[in-house]
């Protein structure tokens, strides 16, 4: 089954049609028999319809030709789809319906007046181009509706190679988009995929014995034979991979169409590409993430992850050419990974819906194998269980997307996201996949440079990721042994929270049924009981009591700000006479200077307030920081208006932990990591006259996880009412 056979079928049909035309004495002028649609493209499948139009110039009398010509074609047993139209009628029909218009793009001369066919073709193409800006949104809506109705070729259990997303109809639509001359797509790749899928359809129709484009489960082994592939699994991978590639090209093309349509018709601005910087070396150009002039892939191993993260977080395309160049030129990541790479990967995984397309680009360009070679194990792997909507790899991406919605419920979003990425990495072998996945997860997490306890936690979560779901549905939740099994396996409330979030994300990504309110009720109930059994105080960082040398010349009105370089950034130490609001002012100083805070420790040392900030900027000038600080204290800068909270997708979590400390009230804050977030929290506390005795600030992927030890300005922990007041104020300041 090849292109040659399709061409042969088309030739046979052409012979049939042209002899029918000649036998009826069809004229050489003013009338033509043309093929449209798949027949027009000369791509007849074994059971395809013959889509033909008898077209004529206005005023030409067809006589009996219009009725007589079809009889020999019907008699031949062909499935005929025919019509008779004048040239203006065809133009009008194409005008009224985009499906007719796109079918006529492939019009091909079969018999009669070749000049008429040529005129028809030219008119149709010209009209298609002229009306493209109005037409394309209609085409897109129709495609999206079809996708919603049918599903994706890459992931459907009974895929339809024609109508599914990533199927033949999408490939034809792509040709139509290219014909508008508005955008371009990689031709060779599209054509190869389309031809490969046409081969598949030929075999499918041959096996079905009729014009069916659906691959039923029992068809795979025969399909493998027909396509000369090793086995049914190979056939699945082959078909699904084509579907995925066409889907990828389709999405890319539509993004580009969006970009073109959103630009004004006559640009007043110069046509030079405008680069909007997003991150070091990475910029946004015409809706795609590209490299800027300063990019230095050879000496910047993190650049690939930085570009991918920027694209996913802005929900735009990572330009495939950029990804391919990064694969070629980017230095390999050192092992273990630097902190920035780990941080970026977590942000990428937690970027939400934007992850899907970027991940596909990384996969297509083989960039993914550069930093996660283990991915090959699950690529296009079908699930053994029918409850799954998706193949394993897509399920994993969906799990990450679902997990990104749950990061405020955990103190370790980085561990959650990497566990979501790796939870099914053990699939595809004979060993139970969570058992097989544990050592792989451990190896990957180690390579990523996680701390030993985090590596243990990730590996443990992968090993036990089914524990909650299976225990909740098969064991008695009222039996203390059931609760004890979950509690003792997870060990800490932190691990249990992570498992709860992972279970929810995994189930939601599997199928809506897997997280029905009924199942969710069982799982949440068990998780809650196990948590109650474990909740004997949450492990929080202790109050810091380091001793730093206070400079002798530090007078009560002054501050000491010192900067020292550390790998990938700087450490800034500030010392000043302690007062309510001191920390807020330092936080504002760094935020105004756009210094990204990675982590910080804050403590009171006698009458002084000391803070040590780990920041992501490499050259920080203490003199400039001091000027900013003086401007803030002197009231010449108003950070409050500068750092008004944005509209974050996820609400912040602010929790008082009354049990954690006796001398101070512990406030735990999880919020989106944005400039000024520490300042917003601290200034809200300062306005309530609450002092920060000590603090631990951390940035894990896209989430700031901060723990504050609060005291009344006059010393002592906050009363219950005051603590609630403080939590409320912080929540309000962040949302």
């Amino acid at each position, binding site marked *: 089954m090849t292109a040659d056979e399709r061409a042969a079928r088309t030739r046979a049909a052409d012979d049939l049609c042209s002899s029918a035309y000649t036998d009826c004495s069809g004229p050489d002028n003013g009338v033509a028999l043309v093929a449209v649609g798949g027949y027009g493209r000369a791509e007849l499948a074994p059971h395809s319809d013959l889509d033909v139009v008898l077209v004529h110039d206005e005023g030409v009398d067809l006589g009996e030709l219009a009725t007589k010509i079809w009889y020999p074609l019907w008699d031949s047993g062909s499935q005929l789809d025919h019509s008779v139209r004048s040239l203006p009628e065809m133009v009008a029909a194409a005008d009224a319906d985009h499906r007719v218009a796109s079918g006529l793009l492939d019009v091909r001369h079969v018999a009669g007046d070749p000049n008429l066919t040529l005129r028809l073709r030219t008119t149709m193409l010209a009209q298609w181009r002229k009306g493209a800006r109005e037409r394309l949104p209609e085409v897109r809506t129709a495609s999206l509706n079809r996708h919603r109705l049918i599903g994706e070729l890459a992931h459907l259990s009974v895929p339809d190679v024609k109508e599914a997303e990533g199927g033949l109809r999408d490939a034809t639509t792509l040709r139509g988009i290219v014909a508008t001359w508005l955008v371009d797509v990689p031709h060779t790749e599209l054509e190869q995929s389309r031809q490969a899928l046409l081969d598949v359809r030929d075999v499918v129709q041959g096996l079905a014995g009729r014009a069916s484009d659906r691959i039923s489960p029992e068809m795979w082994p025969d399909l493998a034979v027909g396509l000369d592939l090793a086995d049914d699994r190979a056939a699945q991978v082959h078909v699904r991979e084509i579907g995925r590639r066409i889907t990828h090209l389709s999405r890319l093309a539509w993004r580009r169409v969006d970009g073109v349509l959103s630009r004004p018709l006559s640009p007043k601005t110069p046509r030079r590409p405008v680069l909007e910087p997003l991150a070091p070396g990475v910029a946004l150009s015409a809706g795609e993430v590209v490299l800027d002039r300063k990019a230095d892939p050879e000496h910047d191993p993190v650049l690939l992850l930085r570009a991918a993260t920027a694209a996913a977080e802005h929900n735009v395309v990572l330009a495939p050419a950029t990804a391919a160049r990064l694969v070629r030129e980017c230095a390999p990541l050192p092992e273990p990974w630097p902190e920035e790479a780990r941080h970026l990967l977590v942000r990428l995984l937690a970027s939400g819906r934007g992850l899907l397309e970027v991940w596909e680009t990384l996969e297509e360009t083989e960039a993914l194998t550069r930093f996660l070679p283990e991915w090959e194990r699950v690529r296009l792997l079908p699930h053994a269980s029918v409850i799954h909507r998706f193949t394993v790899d897509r399920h994993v991406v969906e799990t990450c997307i679902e997990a990104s919605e749950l990061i405020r419920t955990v103190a370790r979003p980085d561990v959650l996201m990497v566990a979501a990425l790796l939870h099914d990495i053990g699939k595809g072998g004979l060993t139970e996949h969570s058992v097989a996945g544990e050592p792989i997860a451990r190896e990957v997490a180690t390579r990523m440079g996680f701390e030993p306890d985090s590596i243990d936690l990730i590996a443990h979560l992968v090993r036990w990721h089914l524990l909650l779901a299976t225990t909740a549905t098969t064991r008695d939740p009222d*039996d203390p042994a059931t609760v004890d099994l979950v509690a003792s396996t997870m060990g800490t409330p932190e691990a249990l929270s992570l498992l709860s979030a992972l279970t929810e994300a995994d189930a939601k990504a599997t199928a809506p049924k897997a997280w029905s309110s009924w199942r969710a*009720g069982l799982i949440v109930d068990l998780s809650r009981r196990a948590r109650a059994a474990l909740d004997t105080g949450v492990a929080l960082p202790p109050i810091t009591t380091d001793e730093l040398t206070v400079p002798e010349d530090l007078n009560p009105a002054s501050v000491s700000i010192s900067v020292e370089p550390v790998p990938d950034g700087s450490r800034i130490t500030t010392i000043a006479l302690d007062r309510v609001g001191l920390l807020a002012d330092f936080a504002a100083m760094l935020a105004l200077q756009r210094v990204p805070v990675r982590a910080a420790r804050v403590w009171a040392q006698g009458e002084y307030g000391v803070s040590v900030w780990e920041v992501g900027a490499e050259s920080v000038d203490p003199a400039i920081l001091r000027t900013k600080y003086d401007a803030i204290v002197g009231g010449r800068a108003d950070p409050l208006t500068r750092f008004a909270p944005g509209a974050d997708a996820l609400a912040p979590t602010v929790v008082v932990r009354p049990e954690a400390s006796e001398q101070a009230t512990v406030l735990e804050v999880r919020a989106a990591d944005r400039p000024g977030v520490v300042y917003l929290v601290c200034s809200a506390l300062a306005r309530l006259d609450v002092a920060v005795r000590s603090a631990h600030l951390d940035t894990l992927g896209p989430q700031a996880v901060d723990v504050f030890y609060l005291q009344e300005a006059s010393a002592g922990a906050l009363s219950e009412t005051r603590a609630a007041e403080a939590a409320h104020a912080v929540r309000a300041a962040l949302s």
Partner: protein
Amino acid sequence: MKLVTAVIKPHKWEDVRQALETAGVSGMTVGEVSGYGRQKGHTEVYRGAEYEISLVPKIRLEVAIDDEDVEAIVAAIEASAQTGRIGDGKIWVSPLESVVRVRTGDRDEAAL
């Protein structure tokens, strides 16, 4: 003919299914349902927020059987679904007026 309906704890479903198979029941209808009985709902605190757990997840199964099998089937469900704790569920038996097997058009006992 009788219709035996049982509402049981979800984790007991596998035990009950096996018991019914052993007792010779070859077909049944099973659903995931929520409800409450004498235990009523209860309030729980989860992730810092209070939840009213008024509806408890249960499995509901229905079996249509001959009159003479009722005792044995009810006993089999009872024995296999019991944990002795609150919320073990209920079994009730109701009369069946008529039954039709859709495929063949068989009626009543022949359709069971």
